[in-house]
């Protein structure tokens, strides 16, 4: 910290304000920092927070219509509960095994056996048919059903829990069979998208909207209404009492400049001024369900920290530990 350039410290203390936090969704503000920090956080959340996903499939019998590679690929994309992923080892640098997936530190084994017996009904093989050897790691909707059965609080969105059919893997016709062994491993989204815990992570600059009230007074109500409607999203509204144009939802603004263009077209340049606040960001995070949104954010900060530590420690030539993998892997 003494190394700050020119003796002047540029250190800032970013503030986070959480607006909304659900299990698979979060919205928070990040202030007093710049785009590089915000984007680093976004990138880490998408690509470097570890999860567990099926990585190795040994197919014993497959007489379904889908070929082996196809089924293996589908299995890989099933989100598995990965709360324990941070503590797990990457199988490539697991000491207990040589990464062959036979040890409990780096891998979880799954079994699937399904056979459509002689009924005319097609059998749907879903993620519910996957049998895990580790209760901590299982397909997310299985975990959801388990939680539900326990009578505990619904971990995820209640609406989705209504149909607990699981994720469809393949449909079997009479006489067809699928039997396989799968090994799930820890990994990061950079290697393959199946390890990415984030469905969507995005941020936007907080807009700062200034309405020139003097100029606005010169508009007729009709013109005001046109102005308000020129924005495809509901940013402005007309106060029913005062009939003034007010900002209803600044964050709905998509930086599409439609209102400004409209104002220019009306011959009133400078009617509305919109600027992006360079140092405040509004994040929206959605997860796949592998980990909760809270875990995702916290783990992302941990990983980001470790990465920064690695940079700082590089000169000291210290042991990077697990961090080295992150750096090398990147």
């Amino acid at each position: 910290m003494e190394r700050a350039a020119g003796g002047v410290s540029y250190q800032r203390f970013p503030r986070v304000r959480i607006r909304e936090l659900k299990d698979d969704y979060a919205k928070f503000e990040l202030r007093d920092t710049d785009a590089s920090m915000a984007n680093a956080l976004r990138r880490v959340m998408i690509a470097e927070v570890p999860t567990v996903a099926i990585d190795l499939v040994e197919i014993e019998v497959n007489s379904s219509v889908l070929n082996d590679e196809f089924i293996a690929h589908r299995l890989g994309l099933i989100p598995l509960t990965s709360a324990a992923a941070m503590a797990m080892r990457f199988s490539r640098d697991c000491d207990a095994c040589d990464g062959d997936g036979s040890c409990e530190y780096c891998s979880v084994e799954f079994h699937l056996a399904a056979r459509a017996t002689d009924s005319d009904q097609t059998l749907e093989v879903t993620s519910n048919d996957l049998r895990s050897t580790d209760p901590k790691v299982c397909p997310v909707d299985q975990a959801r059903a388990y939680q539900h059965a326990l009578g505990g609080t619904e971990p995820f969105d209640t609406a989705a829990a209504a149909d607990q059919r699981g994720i469809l893997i393949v449909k079997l016709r009479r006489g067809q069979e699928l039997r396989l062994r799968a090994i799930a491993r820890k990994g990061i989204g950079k290697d393959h998208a199946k390890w990415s815990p984030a469905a969507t992570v995005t941020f936007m600059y907080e807009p700062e909207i200034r309405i020139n009230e003097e100029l606005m007074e010169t508009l007729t109500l009709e013109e005001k209404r046109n102005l308000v409607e020129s924005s495809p999203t509901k940013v402005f509204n007309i106060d029913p009492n005062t009939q003034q144009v007010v900002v209803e939802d600044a964050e709905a603004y998509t930086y599409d400049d439609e209102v400004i263009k409209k104002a220019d077209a009306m011959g009133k340049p400078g009617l509305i001024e919109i600027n992006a606040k360079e140092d405040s960001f509004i994040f929206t995070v959605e997860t796949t369900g592998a980990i909760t949104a809270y875990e995702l954010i916290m783990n992302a900060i941990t990983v980001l920290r470790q990465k920064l530590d690695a940079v700082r420690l590089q000169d000291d030539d210290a042991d990077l530990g697990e961090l080295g993998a992150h750096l090398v892997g990147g």
Partner: protein
Amino acid sequence: MAAGKSSSASKEDQYAALRELYRPHIDSFDYFIDEGLDKMLQSIRPVEITKGHLFPPKRDGRLDAPLYPQQCRQARTTYHGEFKVDTFIQCNDGPAVRQTFNFGYLPIMLMSKLCHLRGADSEKLIFHGEEATEMGGYFICGGMERLVRILILQKRNYPMGLIRGSFVNRGAGYTDKAVIIRCVQDDQSSVTIKLYYLLNGSARLGFWLGGREFLLPVGIVLKALIDTSDREIFTSLTCCYSDHYERGKGVVSTQLIGERAQIILDEVRDLSLFTRTECLLHLGKYFRSVMEGFEKDDFETVAEAVLKDYIFVHLQNNHDKFNLLIFMLQKLYAIVDQTASPDKADALQYQEVLLPGHLITVFLKDRLQDWLRKSKRLIVEEATKNKSFDLNDSQEVRKFLSKTSAYVGKAIQSMIKVGKVNSQSGLDLPQRDGMTIHAERLNFHRYISHFRSWGFLCPVHTPDGEPCGLLNHMTSTCRISSFYNSEGATKDFQKIKMSLIARLVGAGMAQLLPRIERTGPPEVLHVHVDGCIVGSIASAKIEEVIPEDLEVGYVPLSHGGAYPGLYLFTNPARFLRPVRSLLGLSNGGPNIELIGPFEQAFMEIRCPDGGDGGRNKLFPATHEEIHPTAILSVVANLTPWSDHNQSPRNMYQCQMAKQTMGFCGQALKFRTDVKAFHLQTPQTPIVRTATYSKYCMDEFPSGTNAIVAVLSYTGYDMEDAMILNKSAVDRGMFRGHIFQTECIDLSAKSRDNVTEFFCKSNLSRDTTAAIESDGLPRIGENIFPNEQYYSVCNNLTGTVRPIKLKGSEPAAIDYVAVNGTNFKDRLQKANIRLRRVRNPIIGDKFSSRHGQKGVCSQLWPDIDMPFSANTGMRPDLIINPHAFPSRMTIAMLLESIAAKAGSLKGKFIDATPFASSVKERSNSIVDELGPMLASYGFNYHGTEILYSGVFGTEMKCEIFLGPVYYQRLRHMVSDKFQVRTTGRIDQITRQPIGGRKYGGGIRFGEMERDALLAHGASYLLHDRLHSCSDYHIADVCSICGSLLTATVIKSESQKKAKRDMLGLPTVKPPKNFACQACKTSKGMETVAMPYVFRYLASELAAMNIKLELRLSNRTEHPTTTSEES
């Protein structure tokens, strides 16, 4: 899945539109089975044949076990049925003996009347390993799906006036003008008659017989046809001329016709032929030597046969023939006098098609005649050799007749297999090879296009380049007239003709049998029905008699235009297309009428765009197009909003649609295609045309709705390159497989006549785990290059030979099928299907549906792609904005907006081209879609603000973002990349070999050398052409300059070996070469050179030329330092 009867019935209707596309093929083959076969057999002389039988395909050995197409594909055999003919053989006046001959096997068209799958519903089709949508129309020959191309031919039975330079070459006195008629008999065989105009005003009638053209003075033919007088011929010919007509409208002849008629008659008189008998004798004398089978007949019979078999074969009555010949002469003179314009042979108006069934009928007839000829020669030979041979012994005769009979079936099979028509006569066809093609099932677009080649033609769907405009595709609505009416019953053409004539007479036509009436245009018009002049009708009356159900070519009177007349056509093989008739009918409502190209040229058809198409009030429209898209073929119809694209782009799309890697078939499990491409996760397009659902394209989708951003990002999207989102690919976008089937037939390729069979070696170390005990691979096993995947045992030596996987790609065993056990219950024939994973990689080719193709240049991970702040959306694919301005594919931008709106709304968007011209009042498409987008909070114009994925900063421009249906094309780098450092070299020159298969290099040729020289990159040049090529250090004798006389001195090498053994440091050995010519090693030097130079020296030495090298800087360098380059 558990579909009731009603839903399966509706599914059948769903495929009805699709089935219509294959109709011409199947109908024509059904005709061959039902009628053509018998008619053809009856027309063969001199054997009397009662009935030909063609049997449905059966399995070998077992009777009544039907053979199904799938089994043929699997076993690489032919889907064929036995062909037998009942005949009567009569020797002189002996008793007629009834005998049945077996002519081998004829291929059976799938879904024809003899196919086991005819009329099968989807469930039955699937049960037999076919597609649910299998439409047939092709043959299976040796496991290959072959179909007969539809060829364009000259319109049958229509006399066409032509001006062609090549006619002059017929001989002295010939001009470039002629009237040509292609006459087609009942059995579909045709003879073309040409009527040439001579400089002296006469005409010659020409036809081909036995490989050469015979030219007869027209007068002789006229006189030989019927008993007539000179006066009658003269008046018939001149009837169409009358003094009081000037060169007015519709006048086709001039006074010259009288003089010409005189010349024609004089010619005959000069040959002193006066009566019909004399003419016939003259002809018979001339033709007896060339007409086969008439050697012993008198001249008259020969002449009659010539007239029957070669002159106007579509007519039976000699009076009809006479009338037609008179008409043709009149037309010829009209063209010579320029009172009528010549016809255009290249216009669709004068063309019809050659259908598969017709081709087979014609070719089979030719082969049967050939069989008779061959058998006759055999019998004659035998009769001369063997005195005891008795012609009355039917058994003996039968022996010779059946000797070559099996070749008939084989010839048909090979015609379908190879596409070559081997016939002496040429069968009056425009081409002899390329008659059939392989029906590739790469994807459905390609497959369906095979069946629609040549048509009432699509202006968009034609290749660019050499065959542009020659290889065409039928429009989606086009049909071909056939022998069957809409109820499926056979048409009786005789009946149709009679009723037609009756109606025509009722409408005021004067019947003119037996003689042509003594007048002509412009007073009356001749009425032709299928090339037969049936009467004439006063030109004023004609407007009233046009019936709706046949092709009515009414060529009106004009000044110097086409030769007038009323031409009626009922025959099959004509193009037809539906239009809406505007004429009031008895039932009131507008009805659909089928029109042909001949009548179309003289019809007033309105396009429903409200415009008048440039026609004035004098000619009000009588018909209306059903929809403007009727001009497009099936594939061209699938391009969304193709009316908004620049036209060549639509052409490119038609090409590329046929190269996409999509769903080639749902019965993939049962397919044995040599190579099949398969997309793992195809989607149905959000934006689609009406045709898409009409032809059930969802059964065979061919692409993916990709989120496309039009932006220049990182520069990796320059020059039509495109960036794919790696994460999207990880999740399965554009993933695909290639299925390759290897058919291994050990019985066919036995080595040195030693039989081989599949077997696994007993020695476990010889084989891999992939091979099972029967010598074939285990299904599901992954095989890597150079790994064994099946093994073969030699029956004689008992050694087991493993076969390794070729190529550089791993493969999975998808399927193994065993076909029969021929050799002592040992396996000899098997199909092994390999599956290769083809996920998108850099260098793979993709395209939108608007002729916008591009190559993947980078796979960026999600985090590096730009993202939308509001939705968090990252594009799947980035293309460069420069792809648009010059190519003007506006429809692609429309598709992007429409698909975005459609996906927000959850509805498919209809993108049928020309839809706006049909609607009453229409806004622009953007005005419809824009508000829809805005209502969902998106930009009206489909743009969005994106943030850089790398920096997290807003990009200062609006970016066009939306889903576009993208296709993955079958061109993949994995099949094409060629790279090498070192590797195999040529044995003689020691230079790298060429060819990707052998790991060779790409030629660094003369022009490449020039380029490097121009850049002065001499080191690189040296590296390419020498170091990496045939670098060689040669020993040269500097005394005699010879390159070839160096020999190794043994002792030296022994010394070196000794030093090696003692472990002494190997110093550079002193010269261990000596010149054999100079007998000394003093002058030996080593020189680096290309090895070919040494080769050149030895080649020259072989020609007794000595190549001498002079080493220049020898004095500067001491001899010990020997390396020079």
